[in-house]
């Protein structure tokens, strides 16, 4: 068990190095002179020269990579070329927001996908199966920015029930915080509900076909008890661990949802930074997100390993 963990941890390092190289080159190879964009409306030659020197733009690519990595290893992720704020500060400011959004979205996704998966498995092939599947697939089949805007128009402008945008810290006002997060969390959670539902369905089907279920039925237990009390418990395990993995997808989907709902999380930060050629911000944020995702993968693997008695010899 321990060796398994250590071995996986070791393979993590080259992956992280690759991630850093990947994101660095993707940014630095973007066309357009960042100095011109960052100089904004007042591109005096002195301002441009100053930006070029500060960002080492005239040095060759490997040298720039070296500067960046050296900083990262010392805990300095650079600063935003646009606002001069340190990237690490930006990340720490936004991390709690993104985490809260991701967790709420996951919760909503589970609330949608688990019942849908159970219904779909139990009534396999019938109209309810189709109904539950289509319901769960709706989230995956609509662009989330479009769904977001529709929801804003309905719940904020028409009905006035929820705020159209913005974010209030839960420590400031929990009610306002939830009011501002529920729509974006729904939009995001909806999108991953489908894949979770699929896993739930196939996992349930597997359990329902197992011997112990046949025994339980033979014993005369009602179908409801068989399904909900016996099969479900075993079927849930892989789904929960897979749910943790979907956090990676959530970070990707959050990009546009945060833009539409103006939630100050990573997603919005990255989008603006890409278009403003604010390299340090994109590189720093993606490095942090990728590392988190890889660690999550590792823990999910371990959890799956430990929780599933069949895999543990």
């Amino acid at each position, binding site marked *: 068990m321990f060796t398994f963990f250590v071995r996986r941890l070791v393979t993590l390092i080259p992956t992280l190095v690759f991630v850093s190289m990947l994101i660095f080159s993707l940014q630095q190879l973007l066309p357009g002179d960042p100095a011109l964009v960052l100089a904004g409306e007042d591109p005096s030659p002195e301002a441009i020269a100053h930006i070029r020197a500060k960002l080492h733009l005239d040095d060759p690519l490997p040298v720039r990579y070296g500067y960046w990595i050296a900083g990262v290893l010392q805990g300095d992720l650079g600063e935003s070329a646009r606002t001069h704020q340190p990237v690490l500060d930006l990340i720490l400011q936004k991390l709690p927001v993104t985490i809260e959004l991701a967790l709420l979205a996951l919760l909503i996704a589970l609330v949608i996908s688990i019942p849908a998966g159970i219904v779909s498995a139990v009534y396999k092939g019938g109209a309810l199966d189709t109904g539950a599947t289509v319901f769960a697939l709706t989230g995956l089949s609509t*662009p989330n920015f479009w769904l977001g805007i529709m929801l804003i128009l309905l719940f904020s402008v028409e009905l006035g029930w929820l705020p159209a945008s913005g974010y209030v810290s839960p420590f400031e006002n929990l009610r306002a915080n939830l009011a501002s997060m529920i729509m974006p969390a729904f939009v995001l959670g909806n999108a991953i509900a489908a894949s979770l539902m699929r896993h739930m369905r196939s996992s349930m089907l597997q359990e329902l076909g197992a011997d112990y279920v046949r025994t339980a039925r033979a014993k005369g237990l009602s179908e409801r008890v068989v399904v909900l009390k016996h099969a479900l418990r075993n079927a849930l395990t892989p789904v929960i661990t897979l749910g943790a993995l979907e956090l990676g997808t959530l970070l990707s989907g959050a990009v546009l949802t945060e833009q539409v709902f103006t939630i100050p999380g990573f997603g919005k930060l990255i989008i603006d930074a890409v278009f403003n050629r604010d390299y340090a911000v994109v590189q720093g944020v993606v490095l942090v997100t990728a590392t988190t995702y890889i660690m999550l993968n590792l823990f999910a693997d371990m959890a799956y390993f430990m929780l599933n008695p069949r895999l543990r010899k």
Partner: protein
Amino acid sequence: MMNHATTSNPTLTPPTLKKEPGPWLRAWRKLRRNRKGMFGLYVVLLFIAMAIFAPLISPFDPIEASWSAIRKAPTGTHWFGTDELGRDVLARVIWGARASLLAGVVSVAISLLTGVTIGMLAGFLGGTVDSLISRATDAFLACPFLILAIALAAFLGPSLTNAMIAIGVSASPIFVRLTRAQVLQIKVEDYVEAARAVGCHPFRIAVSHILPNVTAPLIVQASLAIASAVIAEASLSFLGLGQQPPDPSWGSMLNTAKNFMDTAPWMAVWPGLAIFVLVLSFNLLGDGLRDALDPKHR
């Protein structure tokens, strides 16, 4: 006297061996019985037909602007209304099927091409090559998909073609992993060992023995990937990186329409609905294929 009619009974005929249906035929039959999957298949085919026959069925030219008919609600002439430059929305939805379907299919074709090739290399060659490829794939998968796609699309320049390349490349790691896993599993099967022992060229082994057995899960993943590629094109268009005006694509139509949700909701409803139906159908089809092709699924 015993008269056993064993040899000369004219009504007895030797039993004929019924031919076992091949795995593909079996899968097709299973799919036929899956209502959801077939619905998905029919709708997808409908959209493909719409895209191919667009010039024949479209009531108007999709890029012809008309200054007098700006943002008109649906009427007898314009069933879906007109957009912000006076173009017929129905025509743009019909022609837009081409862009959206292309975006979906071509991106996934690119993903398959790159993903399967690299995955085969990794699985087949093993050793350091495999390690390198696996770590690189992990790295790709760890970065948020949309960010990769945005960065690539921005790098290549905003256009539908470049969006397809960007989405295709960003989505290929899944296929690398899938192919590699399958290859590793099949590599140790007896018939492959046998082929090797006989002296078959590795390339031939790869193509004739391994590849056919990899196809099933790839098909399932591909149809699901097409669904998410169509959504990805819409997302890139939302950011101005996909299909450029005046050519129509449902994603870019949504992008313009979002500014007119109040005044001209028909501009957003129809392309949004089109995306929804197409993507839902690909998803249903993919699920149906998975049920039909995967031996583990009953």
